[in-house]
C-alpha cells in the first residue's frame, strides 16, 4: 500500500483556511454593520474550523492509502466513514492528472480515474508528486484494457 505525499496535509489545511477566513470576514462585516457579533467570537469560530480541518487533515493523511493491484485499483480513505474502493481496470474509462493552484504551489498533483458508474464515477487520488502522478496515469492507462463490451 502506498501513502500520499506528506505535503498533501498542507493542501487540505489550506482547504480548511478558506471557510475559516470566510467566517472571520463575515463576522467582522456583521459587527461593522451592527449585528450583535463580537470579532472575538468570529475569530474563535474561524479558529475552531481551522483546527478541525487540521485534525481532519492529519487523520485523513494517516488513513489514505492506495495500491495498484493485479486487476483493480484499491483505495482506502475517509475520516468518519471509512471507504475502501476497488476499481477494476476493465472499468476505467479514462485517466486524468490534475493540478489545482494550491497543489501547484506545493508541487503536488492528483490523478482522477473515471468509470461509467453512477456513483463515484470519478475517483481522485490526491497528493502525488507530478512525476508519480504521470507515472501512475500511464500505468493505469496500460492496465485499463479496452473492454470489448459497451462500457455501460
Amino acid at each position, binding site marked *: 500500500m502506498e501513502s500520499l505525499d506528506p505535503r498533501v496535509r498542507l493542501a487540505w489545511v489550506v482547504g480548511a483556511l478558506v471557510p475559516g477566513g470566510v467566517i472571520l470576514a463575515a463576522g467582522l462585516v456583521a459587527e461593522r454593520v451592527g449585528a450583535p457579533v463580537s470579532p472575538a467570537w468570529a475569530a474563535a469560530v474561524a479558529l475552531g474550523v481551522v483546527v478541525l480541518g487540521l485534525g481532519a487533515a492529519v487523520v485523513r493523511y494517516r488513513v489514505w492509502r492506495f495500491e495498484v493491484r493485479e486487476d483493480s485499483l484499491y483505495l482506502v480513505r475517509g475520516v468518519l466513514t*471509512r471507504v475502501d474502493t476497488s*476499481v477494476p481496470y476493465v472499468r476505467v474509462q479514462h485517466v486524468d492528472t490534475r493540478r489545482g493552484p494550491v497543489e501547484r504551489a506545493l508541487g503536488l498533483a492528483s490523478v482522477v480515474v473515471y468509470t461509467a458508474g*453512477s*456513483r463515484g464515477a470519478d475517483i481522485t487520488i490526491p497528493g502525488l508528486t507530478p512525476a508519480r502522478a504521470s507515472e501512475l496515469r500511464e500505468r493505469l492507462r496500460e492496465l485499463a484494457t479496452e473492454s470489448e463490451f459497451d462500457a455501460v
Partner: protein
Amino acid sequence: MTRLHPASAAVSALRSGGQLALFALFASTAFAGMGGGDGPGPVAFLAVPAAFLVGAGAALARWYRFEYEVLSDRLVVRSGVVSRQDREIPLHRVQNVDVRRSILQRALGLATVTVETAGGGATEATLDAVGSDEADRLRAELGRRGRGDESRDDRESASDDASTAERAGTRPSATAAGATAATGSAGSAESGGVAAESETLYELTGRRFATLCAVSFRPGAVIAPFVGASLFDDLLFDGGRLLVRYGIIDVEVGPGDVPSLGTGDLLSLGLLGAVGFLLVVWVVSAALTFVRYYGFRLERVGDELRYERGLLGRYSGTVPLSKVQTVTVSENAVMRRLGYASLAIETAGYAPGSGGGGGGDGGAETAVPLDTRSRVVALADDVRAELGTDADAEVDDLEAPNSPNDPDDPDDAFGVDTVARPPTRARRRYVARYAIAALVATALAVGVDRLVFDLPGALPLLPLVGVALAPIAGHLTWANRGHTTVGDGFVTRTGVLRRHTRLVPYFRLQTVFVSRTVFQRRRNLASVVGDSASSSGLLGGDAIAYDLDAADADALREELLDRLEDDLAARRRVRHDRRRRAEGGATEGEATSDIGPDAGSDATTDAVGPDHGLPYGPDSVATNGRGSGDEESDTQDGDGGKDTEGDETEGGNDAADRRSDRDGERDD
C-alpha cells in the same frame, strides 16, 4: 436529412409567437400605465402583432434549421439558427428511445422522440415533433441498428427461444410453477419464425389495473389535500357549519366569531382531518396511477422490450435488453400483504419514461407496474436469462466451470428468503436508531410546547410511543435487509415500507465500495456498494448490502471483483468465438458449400475441408490434425484432387493456398 413534421413547426410557431405577443401585451400595458395614459396605447396594437411575428419567425427558423438523419451507424442531428450544432450519436451507444404523444400531439398525429445515451443526465437528442409513423420508424430503426453486431442470427434465435419462454410464462392461466417450468423447457424449444415480430408480454387490464390503482402510492398525491383545501375552503367551511348545526361537533363561539374547541373536539377533529387527508391522498393517488398506467402494455420486439401507457398523453419507449443494468422487484407494504409486486428494468439512460411530463418511479423504468409476485419474478428471471445469452448461448461447448448464466436453472434471486440477513448486532443499531429518532422528536415536541405554544394535554409526549415501537421497526428493517450472490449477479434487498430486491449482473458492476461509518466500525460492520451505471443509482437506487460483518464485507468485495472478471472473460470468449464463427460462415458462403465441418475426411471435398478448418485452424490442435490428414489424402488422390481444386471458386483456391502455406511452415 429530414426536417421535423411541418405541423410541429406550426404548433411551435403559434406557441412561441403567442408567448412573445402576450409578453408584449403585458409590457405595453405596463408602460402605458406608467405614462399615465388609459389602457393599451396605440403602441400595443403594433407591438403585439410584431412580437407575434418575431416569435413565430424564430420558431420557424429553428424548425427550418433542425434536421436529422439516421445513418447506418449513427444518428445525426443538425440544429441551431445563430450558432450551429452538429451532433452525432453512435447508434450502439443509444440506451433507449422514448416516444411521447401529448393530447394535442395525438390530435395532430405527432410524436416527440427522445434518444437517451448513458452520458450525463440530459436527454441526448429530442425530436419535437415528428409524424406518428415516422416516430415508430425511428424507434424501430434506432433500436435495431443499436445492437447490430455481426452475430445477429445467433442472437435472434436465442432471443426467440426466450420469447417462447415468455409467451408461455406470461400466459394468464399459467401458474407460477407452470411459468418457471415453461421457462426451463424453453432451451429445448425449437426456434423459428421471425424474431422481429412483436409479442405482448404483459397487459394491464381489468381487476389487476383496479388493484394497482388502489394499492399504489404516488408521493405527488400528498400535496393534493393542501391544494384542494385552498381551492375548496368555502365548501369545507360550509361542511364544518353543517357539522356544528347538527350537533356532531360542539363549538362554543368565542369573541370575534372564532370558535374555541375543547381538547376532545380538537383531537376528534384532528382525527377526522387525518382520515380525510389520507382519503384524499388515496383517491388522488389512484387517479394519478389510473391516468399514468391506463392501457399499459409491455411487448417484446426482437431483443428489446417496448412499453406503452397513458390515458391523456401516450408514452411509449424501448428498453434494449442488452443495455439492462439492473433488475429490481419492488413491493410496498400493501402489495406485499396481497402477494403483488412490480418490476423495474433500468438502463444507463436517464430515467426513461420520466423524461418530460411523464414523471417516473424514482428514475426507474417500470416494466411491470403490478402483478402477482410469482409472475413478476418469472418475468424478471426471463430478462436475466436474456441478459445471459451473450455468455451462455454457446458456453456449453466451451468449458464452463461455473457458468455464470444458466437460463435453464435461474437462481431464485428474487425469492422471499434468499438473501442473507445482516448479523443480529446490526438489528440493535436499527432499534437504537429508531429510538433515538423518537426521543429527538419528543424533545422537539416538548420544546415547542414549552417555548412556542401550548399543545393540548400529553400530546408532546406522543412521540415517546415511537420508543416503544422502535424494537418492532428495528426488527422489520433488519428482516428486510440482506444480500446474496447468485450465479449471474449481486442481489441486495432493503426497505420496510417499500421493499426493493435489486439484481446487478456481475458484468455490469463498475466499482465496488466497502464503507464503514464510525458507528459501524464500533460494531465491526460494513456496507458493500456494487455500483453500476444504472440511472437509478443517481437517485439513491444503488445496490447496497447494508451492515455485513466487516470480514464478510471484504470477502464479498473480493468475490464481486472475481465474478466480474470471470463473467467478462466468459462473455469475451463467447463473443470472440461467435465472431470467428461468423467469419467462417462468410467464407463458407463464398465457397458455396453447405457441408458440415466434419466432412473434411471425404476426398472429394478436400478443398472445402481446410476452408472450414480455417476459422478454427490457427489455435485448434484438432483442426490442424485434420488438415494434415487432408494433406495425406490429397497426395493419395494425386492429379484428380488437384483438378478439383482448380475448378473451385476463388475462395476455395485461396483457402487451399493458405493451407499449403501453413503446411509449408509446419514442414520448416
